[in-house]
């Protein structure tokens, strides 16, 4: 497949992005306040909306979402192939669905990242 090296590269890039950026982001957003490990609630509406106005924050979430989707869907494909979902037709189906999720999910993240900032 012509695009296979592209998806492998995005998988690898996504691996670095998720490894370095995901744990801290999930901890701050989803666990810090409910587990009383943070003096404030970084995910509260007004607080997060205040941060969301910055272009760096928008770029950060676009990169994070896109990287995680390309990484995770590629991994899922090979887990399913290992589990017996083999053959040219099955793999083409997996490519269509999983790459579609990664591409459209990334485009969605890009849309929300630039909306309210550029237009």
């Amino acid at each position, binding site marked *: 497949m012509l695009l296979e090296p592209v998806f492998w590269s995005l998988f690898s890039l996504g691996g670095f992005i998720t490894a370095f950026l995901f744990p801290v982001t*999930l901890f701050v957003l989803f666990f810090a306040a409910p587990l009383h490990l943070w*003096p404030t609630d970084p995910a509260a509406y007004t607080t997060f909306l205040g941060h969301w106005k910055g272009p760096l924050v928008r770029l950060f979430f676009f990169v994070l979402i896109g990287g*995680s989707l390309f990484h995770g869907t590629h991994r899922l494909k090979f887990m399913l192939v290992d589990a017996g979902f083999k053959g040219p037709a099955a793999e083409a189906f997996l490519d269509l669905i999983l790459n579609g999720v990664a591409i459209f999910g990334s485009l969605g993240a890009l849309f929300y990242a630039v909306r309210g900032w550029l237009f």
Partner: protein
Amino acid sequence: MTGREYPWKRRPGWWLRNRRYLGFQLREAGGVVCALYGLVLLNMLIQLREGESAYTAFLDLLRTPPVLYLNLVLFALVVWHALTWFMLIGKAQPIQFTRQPLPWKVVFGVNVLLWLGVSGAVVYLIFGGI
């Protein structure tokens, strides 16, 4: 002359046979969980755009005890994915600044330090600090 092709077989439950296989499979699962969290974050941005009541309802749902406990388990997989990814870097792509390639444990240690630094930078630059 062509070689004989043997069918590729792997027994069901092969990854439960030893700790290395289990660790490998948990990292694979952690990668998939990262994609699920990518969709959760995307939904968070959608709810943010919808307004305060939609966003707060979404956040409250994530903070109900059953979802919070499930999130803690999934978070452990994400952290395992990160740690094993740092272990992989020195093994899959030996870094050679010296005559001999650096041992993977050194590369792992450097990456963990870098990870802590990057995490601190994210807290201050993205979430406005403590």
